């Protein structure tokens, strides 16, 4: 298969030069970025904050810095918050996005207008989202205003000042922002399903629910997995909105791992601790990214197989 697809030219030095010219920039980049991680390694094993002298004189601490991080309960709370934030927002995006995609599956009048409006949140700059919602959620702002009008009472929720509500707000913000992402993926997935299957199931007298759960859902599995994995990984690293809106507050209610990392390095200037923490998070993230990628690879093969089938797709 691979041989048939590659172009058969005479192998030789020309080919080698050609291949390395294409690959060169990538290797250049990786080489460029490598020292950053070596520097970080140095800091993780040496105890240094900017209040001490020159960094090259820092005291060797062995695994001490790592031990500090791992015994820091604030770090573990941040990790737990990140996981909760990522899981709930991924779930929310998925439910909303999938429902929208199901509703938009068949063409109707105004389809493209709805589509254009639905993708707006995804195209908005994250920092702009944060500040816009700050205006919207302001105690005397439009969201309380609209709720007051609808409920005919004076609604006065402080969306950003009370811990449980603030967490809810941040999750809703992420869902608002990224539902379009799931929506466009699921819509593409739905439209690549062969319509004959749907018709055949209908002819055989299957109910709409059975067609959905036993025909469409299994075929959509790879696309669903893809959307969930990508969304979850992105949500784990979400920083700009949470930071610009709340800086981890109120108290430390929205202090996720990225926020805590930022505070450690750029507010408390514990460079070593920040470096060690970055390493731990980096290793953890690489592990779940690799796990995610392993799942993605399996699903991509299935997607390609569906696309390759004659008659399937567009």
């Amino acid at each position, binding site marked *: 298969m691979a041989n048939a697809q590659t172009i058969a030219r005479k192998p030789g030095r020309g080919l080698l030069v050609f291949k390395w010219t294409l690959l060169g920039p990538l290797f250049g980049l990786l080489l460029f970025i490598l020292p950053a991680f070596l520097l970080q390694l140095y800091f993780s094993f040496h105890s240094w904050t900017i209040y001490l002298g020159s960094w090259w004189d820092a005291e060797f601490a062995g695994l001490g810095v790592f031990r500090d991080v791992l015994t820091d309960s604030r770090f573990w709370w941040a990790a737990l918050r990140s996981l909760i934030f990522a899981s709930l927002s991924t779930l929310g995006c998925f439910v909303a996005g999938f429902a929208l995609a199901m509703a938009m599956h068949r063409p109707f009048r105004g389809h493209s207008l709805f589509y254009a409006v*639905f993708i707006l949140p995804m195209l908005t700059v994250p920092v702009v989202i944060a500040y816009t919602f700050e205006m919207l959620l302001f105690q005397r702002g439009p969201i309380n205003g609209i709720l007051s009008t609808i409920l005919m009472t004076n609604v006065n929720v402080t969306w950003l000042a009370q811990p449980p509500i603030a967490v809810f707000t941040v999750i809703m913000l992420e869902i608002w922002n990224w539902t379009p992402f799931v929506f466009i993926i699921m819509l593409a997935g739905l439209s690549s399903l062969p319509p004959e299957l749907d018709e055949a199931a209908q002819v055989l007298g299957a109910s709409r629910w059975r067609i959905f759960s036993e025909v469409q859902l299994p075929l959509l599995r790879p696309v669903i997995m893809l959307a969930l994995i990508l969304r979850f990984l992105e949500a784990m690293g979400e920083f700009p909105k949470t930071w610009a809106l709340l800086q981890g507050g109120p108290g430390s209610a929205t202090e996720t791992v990225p926020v805590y990392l930022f505070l450690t390095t*750029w507010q408390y200037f514990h460079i070593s601790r920040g470096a060690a923490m970055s390493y731990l998070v980096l290793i953890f993230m690489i592990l779940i990214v690799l796990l995610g990628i392993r799942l993605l690879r399996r699903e991509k093969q299935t997607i390609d197989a569906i696309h390759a089938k004659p008659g399937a797709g567009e």
Partner: protein
Amino acid sequence: MKRFVKKWRYPLFRTLMLTAWALLAGFPIFWITSTSFKPDNEWHKWPPVYVSKNATLDNYRMVWPIHQTGSIFVTPDQKGHGVAHESVTANKPWHALKNSLLIALSSTAIAVAFGTLLAYGVSRYRILSDTRMFQLLVLRMIPPIVVAAPLTLYYSVLQLMDTASGLIVVYFITSLPYAVWMTKSFIDEVPREMEQAAEILGASRWQTIWEIIFPLIRSGVVATFLFILILTWSEYLLSFILSKVDVVTLPVQLSKYEGSTEGRVYGHQAALAVGITFPLIIIGIFIRKHLVRGFTFGMVKR
């Protein structure tokens, strides 16, 4: 009657649901647009003003001044000497716009150029195995905050802090995976027979890329470019950390309105936010058919 209800129940329900969501999705965008035209006494009014009757362009004039306005003020330092400061917000948006344009456009262009070549090599010569291609995604999926600290230290040593080239390199790295994967999905769709024909006619490898492949995937490359431009333009964390004064980009500039001496200047913030986000919305709607491909690294096509 019963049949009528049955026939119209679903479309009605669907339209209601879609309209509700459209209102939810559109309202914040509507709100900043509307706020950007409000005079300052309506910013915090209760009940909220939805559409201002006294709409004004003052906020835009303030944030995007056409003429240089006085922005220098002087404060005494510890020894009593006067020190000139520039106001935190005045006149900065134009500077930030210039930085954003320079950084976003050049890093995106570089990433797409090298990404396309790499993608061609992968598609036709398998210079990277499937495994390596997936490992490339790690570059993108690791949250930037994790590498921000080492990058800051490294950049201070290299004296790349607060320089445009420093940010361009970083964005080149983070957008390369998107560029490679997305353009590869376009190149994979070009039938190989065309290159084989060109080869028989004696075209060199570079000629094949430039004269056969590139014209065929041009619209795809443009879509990739615009897609990555959206991501780079909106990036906040890395430019916030790696810049101080000189290369402040637009998203960072927007965050400076918070907690500055002027207080909560909603109107100005909104006018700046509109300027940052509307170009992206236009670009995004323009390439809406390719967004799926972009966000899923070319794995899902329409």
